[in-house]
């Protein structure tokens, strides 16, 4: 009973501390919110991310003597209408540049992509300067940048292809061979195939880029919003980082009590030291659970994050709580006073969070293999792994391995920390 009394008292104190509430709930929500707004903001109550509205003017036309079947500008246009980008790009055709510009001015679209009439001609002549014009709403930043990246990527490829084509023609002429212009379409086709493959390898293809943001999960619909999934992982990273911070910060109450003299007073009451430590552990445990639940509910309603099935979520959350509380006990056992606590917790947990991949949750494949390996030695890395599995739709059975690893880590850290505390306050 005294264990719960101590836990309740600690919880009351925590929830009356503006700093604690700020670090537990407000900071992770704000950070995730910043990322959310950076990627397009909310859409009038719709929980999904706003798609980037793109207007395309394709004025490109083939000359009468062209060897091509279709203008190359069509390739650029079709990129914005591809099924793979439908969830985050809403493209509309415009008949001319003036209409598209007017639509941007009225903020009906965020970006206008204008492919000029002579685009294919310039491409075939190997001109380096891109004639594709991008007009964007000056109040937007991310959307136009994404579109510009896509166009640049495509135009770079087109320009490179033009140069390659010119080089082939020149080399053939230099060797006294008359170029067979009928073969040009097949060359362009081969170059296009190679370029697409090359971009996939570099993760630069828009379709591939969408996969990097959030890989489609097994069992989920093909139309799942990749930005929502990206937000899910971002929020998970923030939630994990702040859960570990909360675990350690809450455990610091034992140092605070030592400095306030209330710990010594507790020792003069008929309350054994194990109960005191366990009471504090229970308070931290409950705090981290509540924090996780609040952040998950807030993440769901604010950012439309689909966390996964209840059993899987419960298992991942429990693993997170055990590991965060255990690490909290261990870290605080090494800290002498609350003044030392700030830098130790800030530095230690940020370092471990980085090693665990919490700040690069959305780009695991972009990280060096060594970093991914190191993440396996941090509790944060395993918690992130659990949440990734939950959001990928994996079953509770599949989650057992990371859960057991986290439970083992948590228990060992708690045991070592408790031993040190008992020795210190003996």
């Amino acid at each position, binding site marked *: 009973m005294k264990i719960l009394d101590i836990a309740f*008292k600690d919880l009351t104190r925590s929830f009356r501390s503006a700093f604690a509430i700020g670090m537990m709930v407000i900071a992770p929500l704000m950070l995730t919110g910043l990322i959310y707004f950076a990627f397009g903001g909310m859409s009038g109550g719709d929980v999904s991310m706003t798609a980037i509205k793109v207007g395309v003017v394709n004025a490109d036309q083939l000359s009468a003597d062209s060897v091509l079947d279709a203008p190359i500008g069509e390739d650029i246009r079709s990129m914005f209408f591809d099924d793979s980008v439908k969830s985050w790009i809403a493209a509309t055709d415009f008949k001319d540049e003036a209409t598209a510009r007017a639509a941007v001015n009225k903020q009906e679209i965020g970006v206008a992509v204008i492919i000029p009439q002579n685009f294919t001609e310039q491409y075939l002549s190997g001109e380096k300067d891109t004639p594709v014009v991008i007009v964007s709403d000056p109040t937007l930043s991310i959307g136009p940048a994404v579109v510009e990246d896509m166009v640049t990527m495509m135009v770079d490829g087109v320009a490179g292809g033009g140069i390659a084509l010119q080089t082939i023609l020149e080399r053939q002429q230099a060797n006294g061979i008359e170029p067979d212009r009928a073969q040009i379409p097949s060359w362009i086709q081969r170059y296009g195939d190679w370029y697409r493959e090359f971009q996939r390898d570099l993760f630069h293809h828009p379709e591939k880029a969408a996969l990097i943001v959030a890989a489609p999960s097994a069992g989920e619909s093909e139309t799942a919003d990749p930005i929502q999934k990206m937000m899910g992982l971002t929020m998970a990273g923030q939630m994990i980082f702040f859960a570990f911070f909360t675990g350690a910060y809450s455990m610091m109450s034992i140092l605070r009590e030592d400095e306030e003299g209330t710990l*010594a007073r507790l020792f003069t009451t008929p309350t054994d030291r194990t109960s005191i430590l366990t009471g504090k552990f229970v308070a931290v445990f409950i705090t981290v659970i509540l924090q996780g639940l609040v952040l998950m509910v807030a993440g769901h309603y604010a950012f439309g994050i689909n966390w996964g099935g209840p059993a899987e979520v419960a298992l991942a959350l429990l693993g997170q709580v055990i590991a965060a509380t255990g690490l909290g006990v261990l870290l605080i056992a090494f800290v002498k006073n609350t003044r030392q606590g700030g830098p130790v917790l800030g530095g230690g947990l940020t370092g471990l969070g980085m090693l665990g991949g919490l700040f690069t949750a959305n780009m695991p494949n972009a990280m060096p293999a060594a970093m991914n390996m190191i993440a396996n030695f941090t509790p944060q890395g395993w918690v992130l792994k659990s949440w990734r599995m939950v959001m990928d739709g994996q079953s509770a059975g599949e989650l057992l391995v990371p859960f057991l690893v986290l439970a083992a880590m948590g228990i060992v850290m708690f045991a070592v920390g408790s031993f040190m505390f008992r020795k210190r306050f003996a």
Partner: protein
Amino acid sequence: MKAIEVENLQKSFGDFHAVQGASFEAEAGEVLSLLGPNGAGKSTTISMLSGLLAPTGGDACIMGHSVIRDPESAKRSLGVVPQDIALYPDLSARENLVFWGKMYGLRGAELKSRVDAVLDVIGLTDRQKDHVGKFSGGMKRRVNIGAALLHKPDVVIMDEPTVGIDPQSRRHILDNVRELNQKGMTVLYTTHYMEEAAELSHHIAIMDKGRIIAYGTHDELIRMVGEQTRIDLTLNTEAEKILDAWRATQGVAKIDVIDGKVTALVDDSNRVLPRLFEVASKANVRITSVDIQEPNLETVFLHLTGRALRD
């Protein structure tokens, strides 16, 4: 019945012997003061009695329960008022008392009635919902004492509860101690203010350098110095010049320089004081002030240690 029995209690921290075989006892219902200068070992002694520190030798019993063999029972009989405020500033006075009551095993209606009663005793019923952090120093002291009284302990230990507070709060606390004692509680009161010890105590144990150097009632302790009177003298020059000559003067039991003044214990001030003036005159030393004090606990401590209590 003995409420407190301390037998050859010892505590060492490495080579430093903080308490070296302290022995004293207090009957149920009395006030025992542990008097001594800072660093005498008073706080270490009560830390062992209240279960904060494990003794390295000897034993102590609270209401017959050994603090070593049966610490839980000893703690149940004990209420401890720490020297510094040991409360939760972000909880209200009532929340603090409820929490500490629970730590002593109080629950339900009993807890509520005890908290109400203690709030009444410490005079904070009207402010019970305010956070302790917003209280004045004196009000915090009162809650600090109240938290030790919730479970109606047989013995209350108060560790220098009047250090650093205003005279009004000090008077309030001394009155509280007397009231508690009148209700039958045994009080172990540590202080380095001899006036407090003299005013409150049935028995006084004087402690110095980890040892109990004297134990008895106020009158018994005063009798230890006999009829000796303390004389404090201020000179117009360095005291060393004349100290040996005064030491050899008939009727001077002890003489030393303390806090820049010459302090002497003499058998009869009426007869000795003229001799001191005479010796000073011969040595061409001028006495600029004289203060004669009747024997008190300060004199006892000086008599026993050659040092002032506040050294």
